[in-house]
């Protein structure tokens, strides 16, 4: 068994060097599958994972084929979930993938950076929603509203938009983005309070509908608050939005021997910033999960009446979960606005909320690695696989009508994921222990 898996990994390494591309990466994914699912000794597993990391990186750098990124994500998942791998190996390989493999691949194909940044932004938001839906069991269908509030907080003041209603020297210089990440925590938490105060008094399914309605309200406001006073510039959106100056970052990278050009400097910067944010969010998540509040949230999720009779104040505890989740989303909104230098109401539809919910459900409600895996899977699916498939249909199957463009059918895909997960594996791909027990008990 072990020999077979190792042979496969070695074969993939050779292929990645000699003939990198989709075919080689498929072999790599098979090798990864055998490593993860066959009964192997921990040593063989460790060796294989290291080999595969090397091979996927090599393949990515030489061909830029994005299937390799899926392989790297798969290795990360394997590292967090497989038993009996030494901790230092997990840490070392994980860091190598995040800090070396992905940036190196990004220099070969800048789309990898774009994917990495989007995955990171969505992963941080999925972790935020995970607090609300996974830990506290509050189904929030308007989560993108907080993302919107965060994004617009910086978009309005980081562009000339604020001149319409304030006297002052706008746009604010890019350095203020860091300050606005803090301000966005406040504005989104307050929005969460405003929405939560009425909504969280309601029972679970009503809460879902009301948050959905309020999510729409925020989008309608963003769309229409260009008159009487122009706050949001309506459907056209706001652009250009300032980015922080990164001369210090270029110098730092130069000192480390990394040469950056005009396109990759900001991409690497935002990629690392997003990684840092995920690290922070995971830390906060872990601490919360083991805190008094985390236990109170789980208690409310399991049985509201029992939790109340144990002395947990329902509304404040729920509000706290709601506001925490909102704040995560708000910070990522600021980064999103700065990275794209453009925001419009289009990015904050119900589809966005459901996408983030889908990430949490796919990975497993309440599960931290699950939320990250879900974000990676759905983002890659949405931005890469569906688009590639579209390209294939357009070029190879011209008899299919032009309106049938697979890239436009993300609703179908997300809908299928939600329904199939709920029917066959409601606890998600990487279940959280307590949640799994709850789902099985029923």
């Amino acid at each position, binding site marked *: 068994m072990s020999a077979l898996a190792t042979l496969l990994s070695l074969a993939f390494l050779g292929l990645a060097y000699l003939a990198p591309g989709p075919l080689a990466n498929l072999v790599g994914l098979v090798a990864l599958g055998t490593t993860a699912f066959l009964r192997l000794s921990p040593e063989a597993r460790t060796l294989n994972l290291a080999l595969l990391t090397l091979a996927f990186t090599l393949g990515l750098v030489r061909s830029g084929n994005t299937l390799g990124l899926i392989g790297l994500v798969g290795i990360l998942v394997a590292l967090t979930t497989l038993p009996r791998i030494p901790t230092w190996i997990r840490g070392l390989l994980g860091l190598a993938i995040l800090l070396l493999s992905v940036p190196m691949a990004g220099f070969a194909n800048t789309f990898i950076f774009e994917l990495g940044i989007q995955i990171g932004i969505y992963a941080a938001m999925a972790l935020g929603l995970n607090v609300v*839906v996974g830990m506290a*069991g509050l*189904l929030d*269908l308007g989560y993108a509203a907080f993302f919107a509030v965060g994004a617009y907080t910086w978009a309005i003041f980081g562009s000339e938009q604020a001149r319409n209603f304030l006297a002052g020297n706008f746009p604010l210089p890019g350095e203020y983005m860091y300050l606005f990440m803090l301000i966005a925590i406040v504005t989104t938490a307050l929005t969460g309070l405003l929405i939560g105060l*009425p*909504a969280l*008094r*309601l*029972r*679970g*399914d*009503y809460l*879902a*509908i*009301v948050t*959905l*309605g*309020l999510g*729409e*309200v925020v989008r*309608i*406001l963003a*769309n*229409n608050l260009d*008159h*009487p006073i122009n706050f949001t510039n309506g459907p056209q959106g706001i652009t250009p939005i300032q980015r922080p100056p990164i001369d210090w970052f270029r110098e730092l990278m130069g000192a480390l021997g990394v040469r950056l050009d005009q396109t990759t400097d900001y991409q690497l910067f935002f990629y690392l910033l997003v990684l840092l944010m995920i690290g922070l969010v995971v830390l906060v998540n872990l601490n919360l999960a083991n805190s008094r509040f985390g236990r109170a949230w789980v208690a409310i999720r399991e049985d509201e*009446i029992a939790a109340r009779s144990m002395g947990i104040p329902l509304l404040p505890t729920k509000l706290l979960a709601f506001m925490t989740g909102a704040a995560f989303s708000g910070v990522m909104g600021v980064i999103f606005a700065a990275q794209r230098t453009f925001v419009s109401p289009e990015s904050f539809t*119900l589809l966005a909320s*459901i996408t983030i*919910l889908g990430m949490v*459900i796919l990975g497993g409600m309440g599960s931290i690695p699950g939320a990250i895996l879900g974000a990676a899977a759905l983002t890659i699916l949405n931005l890469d696989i569906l688009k590639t498939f579209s390209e294939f249909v357009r070029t190879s199957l011209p008899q*299919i*009508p*032009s*309106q*049938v463009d697979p890239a*436009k*059918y993300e*609703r*179908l895909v*997300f*809908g*299928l*994921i*939600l*329904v199939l997960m*709920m*029917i066959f594996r*409601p606890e998600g791909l990487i279940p959280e222990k307590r949640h799994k027990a*709850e*789902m099985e008990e*029923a």
Partner: protein
Amino acid sequence: MLEQILALLPQVVFDGFILGFVYAMVALGYTMVYGVLELINFAHSEIFMIGAVVGVEVFRYLAPQVGNGFVLLFLALVLGGVVAGITAILVERFAYRPLRKRGTTNRLVPLITAIGVSFILQDLVRLVEGLWHNEFFLRMRTVQDLEGSVELFGGAIFAQTKSFILMGVSILMLLGLTYLVNRTKLGVAIRAVAQDLSTASLMGIDPDRIISRTFLIGGSLGGVAGVLFALQYTTITPYVGFLPGLKAFTAAVLGGIGNIPGAMLGGLVLGQLENFFGTYLPILTNGNFGTEYKDVVAFLILILILLLRPQGLLGQVVKEKV
């Protein structure tokens, strides 16, 4: 300004009834399913949309063959109701029943499933229309017989033939449903299952069959409402069901969810309120706040009702069981 408001009022009330009857019929589907399963059947807005799309297709293909507009509309209503009803049964059979059989107590699971089904149906219809006509922005074909119009009360109300048909058909359907639920054996069974599913099954009622029938009835009503909606508002896309569906749910809550006369009342009240704000908000605020905010009004009503009178206008207070 007051004169302007008064001059528009008859037309606003008339149009409010048109919208209100559509909401009332869709709200019935939500309320009946909620009554038997305590499930917010999100996918119901898509059942409504499917009815509308079937209506468009029937008009597109049969208008040249069928000369009489009224016969054509009758065919569209029947087909729309049947297709929508069958879709509703299929949704129940393949998405909700497996969850019920597993005995999930978690309330979020069926709700998330319902959202998923709703998204799937939207894109499936888009896919079918894309393959069929290579477009998914559909326009209802106009038929002369149904487009006639009269002016009532000295021109205060401009009313079209199709608007009268919409109201007439809605009233007939609502009366029919009331009869079915209150006077027939099936109606008794539905009410029994809604009251207590396990006891009803001890009395020789097959709950699965009754639930399936409930979806059929609610789905057909939604489908008929969809055809009438397409006739009235003419532009239809696969995503057209979302907002009316959400508002019809609001109407069901407004009337007291699970309560059939309540859903009808709630639909009519919400239709009036929405049309009222949609027309008068721009006038009252000198155009600063446009018609777009009428959706916001509907959601605010939903929140206010849930906070102040969660049992709705006609519902009864239900204590949560421990």
